[in-house]
């Protein structure tokens, strides 16, 4: 017997209550958990960068380019988990050539392209063009040409042109903020618009996704900033951490409130799906929802961050706490994606039973694949930081 069938027979034997016969296999596995997680990191990191630029938060300056490059390296990978989970990946291009206008997934292709080409790449390009021109003049051999190509041949660095870089970059940032909101709100919509699934179908879904995206993106930038400074043997500026931490604190409160409201609404309305969702939440999702997402990913970071708003003494301790908080928050947001994506498929649409889910290690839909897509952006980020080192950029006087 095919191993796949073997696996399904095991699940069939473990199903609780009644599920439709076609529901035994989970359609979306761990890759689709990774996909909104990565997109969320992109949107969050970008929004943090925009804060610095649009609202002129000077203190965040050291994280600006880091945030942008982090966003780019994750964005480049964002669609890969989606594509690799398709059972006909070679047909993926069809989404771009015959997009079905009523499908959230089809329009995502264009939202993604817009965000990649018009927002992120352009913003980074405007930001780095001056430096790249200078670098291409300094370097020799291949690198000279790499930078030259990257400037698209626009080598004019007269003050007037450079001023335009800044102006245009600013415009892009302003356009970029709503774009980042749309990008991740849209990912929420992919789930929120499925009326067949009561665990997903809520108008709050895009907003919840957005805020959890910001939470995760901000903590990622905080983490990356700390790690990079550590590797470069530079002092981590605790004031930067405090500033990021403050934003993280406020956004986390908003996120927590929104998700709480969503659940309260659900509990109070207690529609026909309520019984099964109650069982889901108190059973199969107990660990990932209450412990990982709630306690580890939200309550503990909230308390720590609140504490850090007042506690301004031992710098070393504060840094350690920020480090731990950012990791906890990332774990929490990952669990949130898990709870949405996997949780939404564990109960039957007949509302009277559960299937079960076991992640495989290998295979196109396995843990290793998912881990690969999570590690790859870090590699890309390292490459980008080498190619476009923020700390070697040409200083410009405001």
């Amino acid at each position, binding site marked *: 017997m095919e191993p796949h069938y073997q696996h399904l027979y095991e699940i069939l034997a473990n199903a609780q209550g009644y599920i439709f016969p076609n529901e035994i296999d989970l359609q979306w596995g761990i890759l689709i958990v990774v996909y909104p997680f990565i997109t969320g990191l992109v949107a969050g990191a970008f929004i943090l960068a925009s804060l610095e630029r649009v609202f002129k938060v000077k203190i965040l300056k050291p994280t600006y380019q880091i945030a942008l490059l982090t966003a780019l390296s994750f964005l480049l990978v964002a669609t890969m988990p989606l594509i690799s989970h398709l059972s006909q990946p070679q047909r993926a291009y069809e989404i771009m*050539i*015959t997009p*079905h206008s009523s499908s959230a997934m089809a329009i995502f292709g264009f939202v993604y392209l817009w965000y990649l*080409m018009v927002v992120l790449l*352009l913003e980074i390009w405007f930001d780095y063009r001056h430096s790249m021109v200078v670098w291409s003049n300094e370097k020799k051999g291949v690198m000279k040409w790499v930078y030259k190509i990257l400037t698209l041949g*626009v080598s*004019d660095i007269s003050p007037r042109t450079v001023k*335009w*870089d800044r102006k*245009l970059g600013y415009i892009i940032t302003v356009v970029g903020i709503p774009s980042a909101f749309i990008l991740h709100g849209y990912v929420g919509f992919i789930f929120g618009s499925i009326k067949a699934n009561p665990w997903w179908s809520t108008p709050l879904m895009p907003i919840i996704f957005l805020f959890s995206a910001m939470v995760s993106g901000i903590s990622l930038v905080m983490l990356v900033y700390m790690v990079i400074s550590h590797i470069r043997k530079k002092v981590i500026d605790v004031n930067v951490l405090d500033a990021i931490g403050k934003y993280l604190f406020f956004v986390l409160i908003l996120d927590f409130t929104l998700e709480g409201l969503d659940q309260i609404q659900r509990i109070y309305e207690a529609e026909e799906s309520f019984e099964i969702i109650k069982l889901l939440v108190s059973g199969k999702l107990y660990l990932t929802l209450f412990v990982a997402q709630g306690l580890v990913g939200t309550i503990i970071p909230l308390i720590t961050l609140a504490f850090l708003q007042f506690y301004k003494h031992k710098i070393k301790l504060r840094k350690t706490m920020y480090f731990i908080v950012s990791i906890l928050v990332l774990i929490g947001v990952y669990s949130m994606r898990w709870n949405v994506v996997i949780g939404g498929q564990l109960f039957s649409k007949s509302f009277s039973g559960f299937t079960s889910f076991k992640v495989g290690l290998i295979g196109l839909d396995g843990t290793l694949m998912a881990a690969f897509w999570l590690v790859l952006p870090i590699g890309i980020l390292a490459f980008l930081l080498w190619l476009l080192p923020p700390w070697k950029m040409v200083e410009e006087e405001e």
Partner: protein
Amino acid sequence: MKLYIPPQLTRLALAFAIFISLFLVLRHFLVPDTFGQYGHYRGASLIDNAQPEIHYAGQQACFECHQDIQDLKAQDVHSEIHCETCHGPGQKHVLSGESSDILKPTGREFCGLCHAMNAAKQKNAVFQVDLKKHNIGKNCIECHNPHQPWEMKK
């Protein structure tokens, strides 16, 4: 004053124009010919969906060669049941006429599929017997003719 157009803008406009035209040209060649013929789908897919071979020939096909059984069946309670309900897919047999290409059901379970007691079966929809009581140890067709159930065999 002469209008100043920053060189970055013209270059980017060019890059985007090239990118978009490339996309449109590619798209032109990649979109299947019949796409959009009737709606947002490949029109030829309607033909594809009508293509597959049938496996169930339909009752009329059987009558052409099994007139006798048609007559038998028409006289009794199983008249509404089509041949392939009991004999399984018959298209292959219709084409070949070989008896090896068609199933001949046997066993008490087979009749029981329809006639076994179950609270969910409406009393007037089908006659039910308790398989654990009704003439145990014997095959149904030893007494009932499957094509004419009330014509009891001896």
